[in-house]
């Protein structure tokens, strides 16, 4: 039994679970609601936790199986990390079509959480690029699922939070790129209205767009809009291409856990001021390598330790676009009033894609992701207040990041829960499913 945590490091007690290297067959014969598939444990909340039970790790399933350079179709085992895909294929002119803000997640985890990235408005979610997957179930079956085959199970597994079975392998479509470099541009904005105007202006011509927004006290609501496109072939062999794709190259690590959080009011305010001016003053077009552009935080391993022993929450919401401006302003005001600035706050518009999965979080609208140090009930009270705003606006919270939303808030955002329950595997349960789905 090991004490296992998720990326938010919130729970320290009673989190003991058995971690076993799995291939999927282990599901057979398990007691009801006792096991949970687990990838690389990078989810913030309790979607990847199963205290008192067993976690079936896909870590040993880390092989590529097949790649067709004509179609870009890659078949790989579920435990392969996105970083492995990027660094293997970027030098050959292929990259993931969709990638989240960290590359240290597994394919299985990316599917189960139907993750999205900075190009949602252009490319949809990770699940939109999965052409098939293999699902091991506790009844001993090994289901080939695709839009043609076991289509309902396929839709339930994409964004299914690991609850429909153990994904053993998947085929995903990589996209062609002409270099591992991106042409990027940073533009400061003063408020949510300007952010939306920049989004409207950029979405047609820029594949990537994401904004950092100031959630600390002075200048609340201003931020930096960052947009970009893959760079052309003239950058293909720029020096350092290979070197920077190497693992461990120039990677720092947060060496130890602090007894207290470094993230507090003065540091959040200071960081937010510094971040704004650093980017506003250098606002210009530049060429960025995909690593720092897609994965800025990956440069510091274990950065989650900076929040100290109590851990931290991420709060990600999506609200409809038409009322989004007022709703976001209300949320930012609420955060300011609570005096609990968020260290990193990310704002992004999401495109008009139909959700890839039955339970996908991504939907048309505006999404705001906030990181908060865990200050106990004070933090939770702020979340409750934000929940009210999100639910009233017809929005939803991202379960992949969540550790505390109520069942009511969850059901308000995810109307397919009843339908989804039909596809669950009876042997599988997580801390999150017990909290939000009742079992």
């Amino acid at each position, binding site marked *: *039994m*090991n004490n296992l945590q998720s990326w938010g490091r919130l729970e320290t007690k009673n989190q003991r679970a058995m*971690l*076993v*290297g799995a291939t999927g067959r282990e599901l057979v014969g398990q007691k009801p609601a006792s096991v949970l598939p687990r990838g690389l444990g990078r989810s913030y909340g309790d979607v990847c936790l199963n205290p008192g039970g067993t976690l079936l*790790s896909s*870590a*040993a399933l880390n*092989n*590529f*199986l*097949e*790649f067709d*350079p004509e179609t870009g179709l*890659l078949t790989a*085992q579920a435990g392969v990390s996105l970083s492995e895909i990027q660094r*293997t294929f970027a030098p050959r002119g292929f990259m993931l079509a969709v990638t989240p803000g960290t590359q240290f997640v597994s394919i299985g985890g990316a599917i189960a959480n139907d993750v999205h990235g900075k190009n949602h408005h252009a490319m949809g979610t990770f699940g939109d690029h999965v052409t098939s997957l293999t699902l091991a179930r506790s009844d001993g079956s090994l289901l080939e699922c695709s839009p043609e085959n076991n289509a309902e199970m396929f839709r339930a597994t994409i964004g299914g939070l690991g609850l429909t079975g153990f994904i053993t392998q998947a085929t995903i479509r990589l996209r062609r790129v002409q270099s591992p470099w991106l042409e990027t541009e940073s533009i400061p904005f003063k408020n949510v209205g300007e952010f939306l105007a920049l989004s409207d202006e950029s979405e047609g011509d820029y594949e990537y767009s994401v904004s950092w927004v100031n959630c600390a006290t002075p200048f609340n609501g201003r931020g930096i809009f960052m947009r970009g496109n893959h760079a052309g072939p003239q950058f293909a062999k720029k020096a350092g291409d290979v070197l920077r794709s190497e*693992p*461990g190259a120039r990677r720092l690590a947060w060496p130890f856990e602090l007894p207290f959080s470094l993230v507090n009011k003065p540091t959040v305010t200071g960081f937010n001021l510094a971040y704004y001016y650093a980017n506003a003053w250098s606002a210009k077009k530049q060429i960025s390598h995909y690593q720092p552009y897609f994965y800025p935080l990956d440069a510091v391993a274990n950065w989650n330790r900076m929040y100290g022993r109590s851990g931290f929450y991420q709060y990600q919401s999506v609200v409809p676009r038409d009322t989004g401006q007022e709703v976001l302003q209300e949320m930012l005001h609420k955060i300011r009033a609570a005096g609990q600035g968020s260290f990193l706050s990310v704002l992004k518009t999401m495109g008009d894609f139909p959700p890839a999965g039955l339970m996908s979080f991504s939907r048309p609208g505006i999404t705001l992701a906030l990181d908060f140090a865990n200050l106990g009930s004070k933090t939770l009270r702020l979340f409750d207040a934000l929940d009210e705003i999100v639910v009233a606006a017809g929005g939803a919270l991202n379960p992949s990041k969540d550790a505390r939303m109520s069942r009511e808030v969850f059901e308000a955002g995810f109307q397919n829960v009843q339908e989804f329950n039909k596809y669950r595997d009876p042997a599988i349960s997580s801390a999150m499913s017990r909290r939000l789905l009742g079992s």
Partner: protein
Amino acid sequence: MKIAIVSATSTIGQAAARYWARSFESRGNLEFVLVGRNQEALDVVAADLRVRAPEAKVGVVEVDMLNRRAIEAAVTDLGQLDIALVCQGELTDQTTAQNDSSVLDHSIQINAVSPALFAEAIARKFDDQGFGKLAIIGSVAGDRGRKANYAYGASKTFLATFAQGLVHRFAASGVSVLLIKPGPTASRMTLSLANPPTRLADPETVARQIVRAVNSGKRGVLYTPPLWRWIMLVVRLLPNAIFNRLNI
């Protein structure tokens, strides 16, 4: 460049093969022979290497790892080789080995006898060729017997002496022999341990250090990560009066 990986499904063996595939990718004349006891598992490792290095040739040889005749025949069939990495091993549960002699027996067979038989057969081939680089995976566990893992550690001590002899034998030839002593490394062996050591080395880092050392023709012993050389020096130098009181 023809490379044989014995027990290619082991975490370190596979990580080393991947690193070779990366570093030789553009040269095109790379050939792997993956040796192991399970065809199905070897095929997955082979598929992975083919995706990583489409230009490389990848072959698979299934062999009974505990049968000396099968081992000798398999090594003969490999033909001319440039590099061989011998990495079979199973982490033995010490308490089980103390109480079940079949577990102890199997541990010695797979961790000592099998790699020695492979190493000797490959050494004969390299001797005939007049060149070749042989690397054998030992362990820091072989540096001093400890109550926590002597069933496993003793086999690694045996391998260390065996490799030392090979190094001596080939000292003035074109054949290099290297014993690798990895510290605790994250692998399939450690994933399900009840109490995994808090600091496990990343197999990729270990593989990179191994491949670089083997490629350069290093002879003797390689500790990886290198810090373990100094840790084990201290462990070896501790007087029994102190060592025997420690709960390590």
